[in-house]
């Protein structure tokens, strides 16, 4: 790498990256400011300057009118069941695909990979009638089951890669000790793959919290946080200040998770794409 970079080059790099970052966050800052303008029709601020008075009460109003207590409860309950279930199934499946050979294992693995590009639209029509026939419309279970079944495709892929990167000596040592596959998984492989498991957990949580389409299709009174926001913004189209407050409310939990786990997010988002 060039070590004799001129100051001008360094300054140019920073200027460019700063400009890009401003473009990336301007609408987000704007919506945060808009959320503090006095509510009402035509409350749209121009986006240049601070609100005349800080209408913090918008958040209380939005929380109540947007029924966010309900949609946050749904998102939390669903994530609380869905994330551990999905990660567990992914660990089990990924372990088998990484360390065992059995008839049809390659075909099975590729079937899972296919799931990464099957769009929800292709299955949503029959799924709606299936879920209705099971009596699960408008239940947490519908969201939990469908989210897990959608998430395991990536999870298995991810965990298989993580377990494959374990040094063969680890497994051999376990074999010599005569450990069962179950013991080997929990005593040796899972501790080894902890960082990958953490990344998977964080990404799965984000996906679950952000779930919108499934909630829109399968629930009426149990909207997830984003679906609750969409419905709120549909009812209050003209009140930009209030809707903006709702948007900030929905964004905050995921923002906190992102800031705490940004390392895991980056790894999840970039590794596969960048590695190699």
């Amino acid at each position, binding site marked *: *790498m060039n070590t004799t970079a001129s100051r001008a*080059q360094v300054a140019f*790099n*920073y200027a*460019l990256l700063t400009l*890009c970052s401003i473009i*990336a*966050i301007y*609408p*987000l800052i*704007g919506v945060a400011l808009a959320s503090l303008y006095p509510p009402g029709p035509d409350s*749209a601020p*121009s986006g240049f300057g601070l609100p005349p008075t800080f209408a913090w009460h918008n958040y209380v109003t939005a929380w109540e009118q947007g029924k966010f207590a309900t949609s946050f409860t749904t998102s939390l309950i669903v994530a609380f069941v869905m994330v551990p279930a999905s990660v567990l*199934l992914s660990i*089990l*499946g990924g372990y*088998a*695909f990484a360390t*065992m*050979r059995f008839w049809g294992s390659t075909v*099975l693995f590729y*079937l899972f990979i296919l*799931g*990464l590009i099957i*769009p929800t*639209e*292709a*299955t*949503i*029509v*029959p799924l*709606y*009638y299936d879920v209705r026939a099971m009596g699960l419309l408008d239940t947490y279970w519908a969201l939990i089951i469908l989210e897990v*079944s*959608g998430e395991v495709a990536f999870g298995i*892929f*991810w965990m298989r*890669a993580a377990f494959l990167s374990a040094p063969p000596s680890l497994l051999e040592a376990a074999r010599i000790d005569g450990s069962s*596959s179950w013991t080997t998984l929990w005593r040796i492989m899972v501790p080894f793959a902890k960082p990958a498991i953490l990344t998977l957990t964080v*990404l799965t949580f*984000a*996906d679950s919290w*952000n779930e*919108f389409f499934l909630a829109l299709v399968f629930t009426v009174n149990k909207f997830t946080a*984003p679906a609750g*926001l969409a419905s709120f*913004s549909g009812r209050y189209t003209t009140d930009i200040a209030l*809707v*903006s407050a709702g*948007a900030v409310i*929905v*964004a905050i939990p*995921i923002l906190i998770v*992102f800031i705490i786990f940004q390392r895991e997010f980056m790894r*999840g*988002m*970039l590794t*596969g*794409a*960048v590695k190699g």
Partner: protein
Amino acid sequence: MDPGPQVATRAAALGSLRRRPERLPGEARRIGYLYVAPAFILYAAFNLLPLFQGINISFYNWDGITPGTWVGLDNYTEFFTDPTILAGYTHVLILMIFYAFLPIVIGLFLAALISRIRIRGLTVFRILLFLPLVITDVVTAVAWTWVYDINGPISTALRAIGLGRLVPAQGWLGDFNTALPAVGVFGLWGGFGFCLILFLAGVMKIPASLYEAARVDGANAIREFFAVTLPGLRYELQVVLVLSVIGTLDTFDEIYVMTGGGPGTATSVPAYLVWRRLFQTGQVGSAAALGIVLMLIIFAVTWAINRAMERGNEA
């Protein structure tokens, strides 16, 4: 569907797909079935089985309530005669310019402009540039609804420089001419940061010796870009192309929030049509056919891009 972390997870997976399964791992053990079974049963029941059910439904004219009638391929031939479907696909093609082509071109251009030196504080830029991707579509779409408002920042800025007549009376999302490009710009905003970060990381990995060699050969910046940078980024390009094209094809969330497919059908897209026909217009068979065709197109496009890029690698 959701270009949040899910897109990224797909990126990770598809990105590594190119690495051929090395050795067949592990020892022969039938107990493997037991480990895979729980995930597979769920996955098969709620992803694979519905595919076949969907194909079946797509051969019927069904309103979702009364018994349907078998219509053979009518729901598919409709693709060539139904102007709404044709419009949906036209819109998605136009959106692709904004969701796939422009973010890649802009990302490449910026990554090439930035000199290859260690950037302190890159983590901060990464976080900021990733925010549009991390924050769910519904939230960012609400933000952009404000951006496009008649009193929002774009309109205000245009009025300030005396171009107020350009501001559409119904706002940028309510105007037949500007609604679709407006949605497009939203997609461009959502994607360019990811492209830039990805390409930047890729450029840093290209051996400095290749650049030195190019310089010795007397290559100017432009030749250097096409001879060294672009070939060095082909894996990143492949991943981003596949992801952004798939992402455009199943665009739904922002359409639902920002325009509802309108004004008229000006921003209607295939995924939105599936939803509308399933729940609002009682054309369930047609909705199923739309979903199946969308999937086939996604398969074909993914295959074509991967193949084209792999060919390029061999050459």
